[in-house]
């Protein structure tokens, strides 16, 4: 039984497909009984602004948004759950969302622009390292 086992995921990228990977992995780990913390930093943190979660471009073949439009169509056709719903699942299953304090400073993000209701806490690198040391799985996306 994996009770108490941990996964920590750094979400450094803000691209649509990478945020998808991160949230699927996060909800997947929670579903397998692990505790999960997702650390949003740099371009990843931009996605925690209000109404921005699915606004990133594709990491490849974006073609000024045409590629993303096509990808979104494919996702819908395959009945893949939308990012907002996955984030809700993540919260419902008890996952933690951590926002990097330093990124807020260097990228001139207003805290008021961030979705406070989904952010569990604000933190710095020490918190991540401490949790990562106790984790069975850690990913950098």
């Amino acid at each position, binding site marked *: *039984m*994996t*009770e108490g086992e941990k996964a920590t995921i750094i979400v450094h990228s803000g691209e649509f497909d990478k945020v998808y990977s991160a949230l*699927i992995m996060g*909800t*997947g780990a*929670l*579903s*397998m*009984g692990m505790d999960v913390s997702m650390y949003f930093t740099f371009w990843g943190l931009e996605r925690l602004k209000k109404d921005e979660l699915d606004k990133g471009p594709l990491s490849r073949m974006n073609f000024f948004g045409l590629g993303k439009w096509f990808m979104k169509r494919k996702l819908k056709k*395959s*009945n*893949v*759950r939308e990012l907002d719903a*996955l984030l809700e*699942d993540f919260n*419902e*299953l008890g996952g933690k969302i951590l926002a990097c304090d330093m990124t807020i400073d260097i990228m001139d993000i207003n805290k008021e622009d961030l979705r406070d209701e989904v952010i569990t806490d604000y933190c710095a690198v020490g918190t991540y390292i401490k949790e990562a040391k106790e984790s069975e799985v850690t990913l950098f996306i």
Partner: protein
Amino acid sequence: MSASKNVDVLGETCPVPLVETRKAVRKASPGDVIEVVGNHPESKEEIPMAVDELGLELLEIKEKGDKWKIRIKIPEED
């Protein structure tokens, strides 16, 4: 034994069958039986993995065509 909770994930894909199963498990009480019905092929393999990881009891896996049904029991408290 009839199921005390039903999870219908027909037509759903990764990670939804796993996520919805986990949600039902979290809401269940000791002794409850959860019945998950779906047709996502990988989830038929992965839900039993999660059952194992979560220390639950796998009662049965039934298949009919593309559809599968998995019955899970939440262990009674000692």
